[in-house]
């Protein structure tokens, strides 16, 4: 009959657990990267890059220049709405802005339903390369907001001018 010393049993238990744990972590990492690559998420997320062909036409909300956006921000006359993903928002955003990622936005979004319809809103995304700010502004307009505008220069132009950002 084999007799195991308690210390050697604990050592054997930890050795087995550690070897299995390493296998699980390696498998988890492989699965994580494969899944995000196949679904285009995380590191493999693609940003929509479509330039609007006709800004300020009748169907899209008015566009703001940087100076106009800055003026509204300084005077706190408008609520800035970030249309980018919550991850991008977390990485940095215009000070005081709220996050309504385009993919999560619908008229029943708690923030959208809570805001007064005459609230002045300015939507933005990364900049000229993205169009989610326009899509969000259009959605907000159709939800009944009458004062929606798009800061088309977006986060990139805002940072270029060293304006107030968070965090």
């Amino acid at each position: 009959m084999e007799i195991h010393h308690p210390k050697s049993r604990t050592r054997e238990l930890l050795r087995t657990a550690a070897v299995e744990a390493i296998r699980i972590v390696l498998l988890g990492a492989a699965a994580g990267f494969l899944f995000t690559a196949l679904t285009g998420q995380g590191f493999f997320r693609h940003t929509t890059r479509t330039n609007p062909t006709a800004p300020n036409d009748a169907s899209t909300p008015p566009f703001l220049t940087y100076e106009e956006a800055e003026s509204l921000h300084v005077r706190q006359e408008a609520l800035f709405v970030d249309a980018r993903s919550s991850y991008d928002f977390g990485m940095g955003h215009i000070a005081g802005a709220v996050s309504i990622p385009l993919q999560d936005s619908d008229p029943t979004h708690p923030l959208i339903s809570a805001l007064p319809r005459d609230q002045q809103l300015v939507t933005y995304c990364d900049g000229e390369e993205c169009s989610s700010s326009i899509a969000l502004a259009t959605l907000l307009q159709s939800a009944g907001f009458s004062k929606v505008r798009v800061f088309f220069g977006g986060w990139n132009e805002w940072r270029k001018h060293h304006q107030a950002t968070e965090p």
Partner: protein
Amino acid sequence: MTTPQIRRDAAIAVLRILLGVLFLYASLGKITDPTAFASSVTAYDIVGGHAALFLATVLPWVEALCGVGLILGLFWRGSAFLTILMLAQFTAVVLYALWRGLDISCGCYTQDPAAERLGWWKIGENAILLVVATLVLRHPRAILALDRVLRRSL
């Protein structure tokens, strides 16, 4: 095997499976939206950028595999060991966030920033889970475990 031993084995198996279900459940929301989970990680203000994205890519899958491992009793020692490591790390991070007075969402079971605000209850919850995971790891046998079936067939 005596009746008390069988009872103890059964109780540990139930705890193991419940712990597995909890970890599997916690991983699902993170797996389906890694960007939102990376945002939750960033909110703790410890890591950000690519490090947060890396964690958001790998950690939920490790959680899920541990969950499945504990439920099926496959690699259950490694799963319990990793569960202990993850819970210890989560607890340290939550303590650090509470110490700094951060009013953020836990990001543990849901990625909704308005839900699951951090609080001391989270430390208590993690402490209970740590005890359960340690009991599972230290128990010499596992019943209702695929490991046993596979070892026998080898």
